[in-house]
């Protein structure tokens, strides 16, 4: 028997990174060794020449949400502010494999966002039109078009919530998360960034309104600047300097099936029935569920969420009936009131904040890494993250992406 398609994923390189002891002091300490932290360190070094950088990770690199997401990449967000930073990110994704010299398996197989009600249709058309005027590839497809792109979607009008159409972004897709994280880590390390694992930040030291050091489980580390990239744990870290954030950390679950012959050529998302699914490179179905309602740092959610999601998935994809759930897991997503991130300066000098990405963090990795590095290097927001200040909650200038991102990835 020959081996099935997708069985051969590219091998990882023979060398990734060293595991140094932390130095006494760094120009920049990035707290959080997930995708965002690693990308930030990479762009600090590559674009801004700042290489005396440490990335501190309390567990293992990219073991948080980076290891727990469903790897969907798209930029078809409604508002100009969002589409700006996500499209910037998508453009970087398109050159990332070459940039990092790492096979990240970025696969632009397209994303369908299904509409199930007349209001879904209006909202979808609105978003498609906004996307196009923002230079983002987007189209509205009718049910027959949905079927053409993804033949296994049930477009029968007789189901409980029929598919009335979908938005389609052809340039959207998926990538392999470990490969992305390790690509950034390896490249950052090669430029001199220290990657320090099993190093939990236990305190932030300030003097005269300016950050001076981080206290860690591996000792005090002096820092000229500190950049927080801690996703679900952002609130806990910010509180160390008395900074309150408008965030709630929730469990977000996902699951994977066993390996299956290719049946699903694209990515399908349905906010209305809380399903998003793709078939990963080796053939496993990767699906995400809705956010659990309660605050939680336990990296586990409630199983009824998964059961509901399965019922919804089978309505859309009857062919999945006898696929098997192989593994479930949960991440901790930091959700902001307007479902948009907070990226920028803080009232503490030299302390920078990147959080609130909720379910959208993975796709933003290159974009926010680049913009956040710029923000840190220049002590000034990059134009793409300028709208995403903490102050917007005071002024009311929210970027409300609930319509586009409430359960979306």
């Amino acid at each position, binding site marked *: 028997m020959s081996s099935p398609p997708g069985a051969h994923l590219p091998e990882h390189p023979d*060398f990734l*990174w060293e595991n140094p002891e932390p130095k006494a002091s760094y120009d920049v300490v990035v707290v959080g060794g997930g995708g965002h932290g690693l990308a930030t360190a990479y762009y600090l070094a590559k674009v801004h020449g700042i290489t005396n950088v440490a990335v501190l990770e309390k567990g293992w690199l990219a073991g948080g949400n980076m290891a727990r997401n469903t790897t969907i990449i798209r930029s078809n967000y409604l508002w100009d502010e969002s589409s700006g930073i996500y499209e910037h990110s998508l453009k970087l994704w398109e050159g990332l494999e070459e940039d990092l010299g790492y096979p990240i398996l970025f696969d632009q197989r397209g994303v369908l966002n299904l509409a199930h009600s007349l209001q879904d249709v209006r909202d979808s058309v609105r978003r498609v039109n906004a996307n*196009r005027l*923002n230079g983002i590839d987007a189209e509205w497809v009718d049910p027959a078009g949905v079927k053409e792109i993804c033949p296994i979607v049930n477009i029968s009008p007789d189901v409980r919530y029929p598919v009335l159409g979908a938005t389609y972004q052809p340039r959207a897709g998926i990538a392999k998360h470990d490969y992305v994280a390790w690509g950034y880590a390896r490249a950052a390390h090669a430029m001199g960034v220290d990657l320090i694992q099993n190093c939990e930040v236990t305190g932030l030291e300030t003097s005269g309104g300016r950050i001076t050091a981080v206290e860690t489980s591996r000792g005090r580390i002096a820092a000229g600047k500190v950049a927080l990239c801690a996703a679900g744990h952002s609130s806990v870290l910010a509180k160390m300097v008395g900074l309150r954030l408008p965030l709630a950390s929730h469990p977000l679950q996902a699951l994977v099936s066993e390996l299956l012959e290719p049946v699903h050529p694209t990515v399908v998302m349905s906010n209305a029935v809380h399903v998003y699914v793709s078939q990963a490179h080796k053939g496993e179905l990767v699906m995400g569920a809705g956010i659990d309602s309660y605050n939680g740092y336990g990296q586990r959610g409630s199983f009824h969420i998964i059961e509901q999601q399965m019922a919804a998935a089978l309505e859309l994809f009857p*062919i999945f009936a*006898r696929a*098997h759930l192989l*593994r479930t897991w949960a991440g901790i997503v930091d959700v902001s009131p307007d479902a948009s991130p907070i990226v920028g300066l803080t009232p503490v000098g030299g302390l920078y904040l990147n959080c609130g990405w909720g379910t959208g963090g993975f796709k933003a990795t290159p974009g926010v890494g680049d913009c956040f590095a710029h923000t840190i290097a220049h002590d000034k927001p990059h134009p793409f993250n300028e709208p995403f200040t903490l102050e917007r909650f005071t002024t009311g200038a929210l970027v409300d992406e*609930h319509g586009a991102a409430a359960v979306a990835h």
Partner: protein
Amino acid sequence: MNFRTPTGGAIDRNTVLRFTFNGQALTGHPGDTLASALLANGVHEVGSSVKLGRPRGIVAAGSEDPTSLVQVETPFSEPMLLATTVELFDGLQARGLAGQGRLSPEPDPARYDAKHEHCDVLVVGAGPAGLVAALTAARSGARVVLVDEQNQAGGALLGVDEYLDDRPSAEWVADIVAELRTTPGVLVLERTTAFGMYQDGFVLALQKRTDHLGFAAPASVARQRVWRIRTKQTVLATGAHERPVVFADNDRPGIMLASSARTFLHRYGVLPGWRAVVFTTNDSAYCAAIDLAESGVDIPLIVDARLEAPARLATECAARGIEVRAGHVVTGTEGSARVTGVHVAGQTVPCDTLLVSGGWNPVVNLFSQARGKLRYDSELGAFVPGEELASVRVAGSATGELDLNACARQGRDAGAAAAVAAGFTPGGQVPLPVSDSRCTQRTGLVLWRVPGDEDVSFVDLQRDATVTDVLRATGAGLRSLEHIKRYTTIGTAHDQGKTSGMIAAGIVAEALGVELADQRPTTFRPPYTSVSFAALAGRNRGELHDPVRVTAIHPWHVAHGALFENVGQWKRPWYYPRDGEDLHAAVLRECRAARESVGMMDGSTLGKIDVQGGDAGKFLDMLYTNMMSTVKVGRIRYGVMCGVDGMVIDDGTVIRVGEERFLVTTTTGNAARILDWMEEWLQTEWPHLDVHCTSVTEHWATIPLVGPKSRDVLAAVAPSLDVSNEAFEFMTWQDAVVAGVPARVCRISFSGELAYEINVTAWHGLAVWEALMEAGSPYGITPYGTETMHVLRAEKGYPIIGQETDATVTPQDLGMAWAVSKKKPDFIGKRSFARVENLRTDRKQLVGLLPVDPTVLLPEGSQIVETDRLPEPPVRMLGHVTSSYPSAALGRTFALALVRSGRERIGETLYVPVEDELVPVTVTDSVLYDKEGARRDG
């Protein structure tokens, strides 16, 4: 060749089952698994590996098997099942897989369900420890559930021919099961795998109820059931899995775990081959060797990695002519589709089977899922439960204890302790069985791998991950087991590393020179074994997927050809096409009827909340932006509600029923949310207020009767009601008898026309609707749906919450500053109106748009730009089209839109990109029809 023993095994030799594998016709017996039946026919090669395409066989006898993946094709195709867990039935067709299964495009005809079960003590695993635990708990009077993944109780006893208390162990098992089954409050579930352990004693178990029946499975019985068990106490008697040792070419079919070979022999009467070499690190494999030898298998050699073989067992082997070579290891194998020889000390020993035992891994998956900490047991070479949990106990070999009598004792202790913890007093003590087993199970050597060709020394047979891969990972700088798992993919296949995970950890620790005791094992995640999507969806599919909510008048709509729109869970008539009309034609006709004569719709889905109490007015003043406490009894006021952020969340009418009583309506989609919103404020912020809210949404059927002839129709069905404009003013209500039924009639209008809203008890809804149809027939009364309702209101510039609003829109943006009280000191949302962003003059505001070409219909959702030529992206957008319709009344198309500084732009020409064109539109006031309100009074 037949590998079936002449006697023995729990199979029915008198019945022959026919099946095919990879197209080859074979036979087996009831009691067989597909794996045992294949082995009985001499078939070891089941499939091939996913990456390298190397042959893969059967390594284990149960659900821990890493390799025997098959696609079962009958009676319905199902991918990625283990041959070792598929029970044989007549007519089974299966084929081996290369690591990937195939989904059938045919609809799955099977039924699935779920069931809730509550108990005091749940016992997982019906081996000796679990059986004693369950019976001990049962005798205390506790409600007990015992689940086991096999088709019969017994656990490890099923795979041996040992005696307990001087009789076959099966008899001991049968006695316990019989007592359990006859004890009230005890539920014994076979073929039921506890796959997930969650918070607060919540355990999910999958029961396979009909798969073993094959074509005889009754269609009415749910094929699989998810048991949702809520238990006070749990005893995990989940046993242990034998693990292999890694050596060069350890992946060939015919290489099998020693205890599994013993299971195939005793449970199924199947020999794995005729000539078997045994490679072990511990005593247990000797029993397999001796049993197989006694069944006629030639055992040329036992290779024992320990420096000294166990004396008594070695003697027994010698008596049977089995050579034991201690202090040796297997360094490689030969063969391709089947092992043909084993390398030991530079020699090749010919054989057709190699049995391997590298010790035992306690099954701690559920304990770990229950957040129990694990501890590395260096003697066992495995992680074992490392702490006691308040409501989860572990007994038997799942603790690392391998002696049967001790396991049973643990079971008894755990069962008693669980019963006591659940509030029961232990009853009669269950006697512990005494085993005649030859093997003391402990005292092994911990050996992860034999040095050799690392490129073909497989750690994860399913993922083709080798020692080379592990060493590459550590060499690349990886230290965490989680990283190494990802680098090598070890433990990520369908078996989730049941046999490979511990070995990988051991090899990593050796490579890094660290102690396993200091390593954190990778996380055990649910499910323990794979669960079909359909089983998890249960019966929540098709018409039961999500409730369809319907009104009392719904049957009429169906009978009269309405097409329906989903609004939340409700089915609402969208429009009523006649004679092949399309949406536009039907809606134009329906609109014309309402504007020119009379129409009516089913408005029963509107949320209705009865608000009573001395502070009801004060309360509503806080919830609505406008003043409600000043509404006079008998009158009605339209109101808008905002969230604390000042954004519109709902609107509706407020009817003052009495001095201390109001009836408020909400939009259809928000009915539950607004009642919750009210309760939240009342209960958590203002408990001092004398206000009570009660939903009456479904108590009332609501029928808006709309159009210049509505008065005549109403008069006809409500002869005692004075319907004159003077006696029944706009924005008032009256109780009346309508069509012989007590009704509340409101004079409100969502269309600008003369209109009445007739509310009757839902039981009367259909009759009153029919009476109105009859009374209206002289006027051509026309039922209309949501689309016409939307057009009529849009012509008047009335917004629909959720269509004109999107959680970023204030009442002022909607042009409803008039509905925002200046007098009230506070109401929810008021403070937010003073924020910087709310004070901007260039906010998006609701306006009308008239395409310059009156036949052009703008697509809803279109964006609006300022210039007649599009610059390069990003293009500045001024807003978007929220609603757009052809209008019978206006004789043209029109739209509503949210436009930046919209009200200042009235009269301006803007552009709407549609496909590749820019459609010029004129900005107008949002009210396009009957601006003066002349039609309201008829």
